[in-house]
């Protein structure tokens, strides 16, 4: 980091967390409103891309020591595990369960197993996008 771009650095500290929170919001808003795991994962990847653009490759790797191929594997495991719940319970593969629960702060809320599948999609999208960006950006 030999350059001293104060405006971009200061902006990134604020905007990265805004993008991160918006990604979480889009991810949780799925199923009944526009959103879902795929769009949330892409937004999270674009927020990480902002970090890569502001700082350099080595700094971000030191900041977030994440192996993205392991992230993809965890996401695929989530998706497969959610799909296999139906097999264990004696229903068809990919059966979707939901019910109403009384949660402490949120009140009456509807919980789905599709949410767990969406978590897997989120992790896979973030992992694959960041793997592509790292392999393109790191190759000089």
């Amino acid at each position, binding site marked *: 980091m030999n350059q001293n771009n104060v405006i971009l650095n200061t902006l990134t500290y604020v905007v990265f967390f805004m993008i991160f929170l918006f990604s979480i919001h889009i991810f949780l808003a799925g199923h009944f409103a526009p959103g879902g795991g795929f769009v949330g994962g892409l937004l999270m990847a674009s927020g990480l891309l902002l970090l890569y653009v502001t700082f*350099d490759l080595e700094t971000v790797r030191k900041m977030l020591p994440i192996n993205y191929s392991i992230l993809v594997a965890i996401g695929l495991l989530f998706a497969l595990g959610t799909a296999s719940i139906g097999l264990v319970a004696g229903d068809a593969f990919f059966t979707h369960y939901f019910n109403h629960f009384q949660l402490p702060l949120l009140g009456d809320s509807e919980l789905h197993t599709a949410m767990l599948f969406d978590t897997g999609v989120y992790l896979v999208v973030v992992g694959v996008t960041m793997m592509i960006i790292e392999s393109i950006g790191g190759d000089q």
Partner: protein
Amino acid sequence: MIFGVMIICSIVIGISLLLLVLRLLKGPTTIDRVIALDAIGVSLIGLIGIFSIIVDTAFYVEIILLLAVLSFIGTISFAKFLEKGKIIDDSSKK
């Protein structure tokens, strides 16, 4: 009343979008084209906001935020590419 105002505003933004596309196509330098692209993003945000008022729904607010994020990152990347020659620095290869 509010409907007529919104129609007039969207027509004005549409005219400015056409002029921006003209600038994007024939801009003399790359800097002009990048600035035109950023201004197109901002104008699209305004147009979607007006459309959201016309059809009276709040679902478009998330699309506005998404477009703002993508336009911001695109402009930052273009500016860094024009300034430094590469988008992602690699300090380990020096």
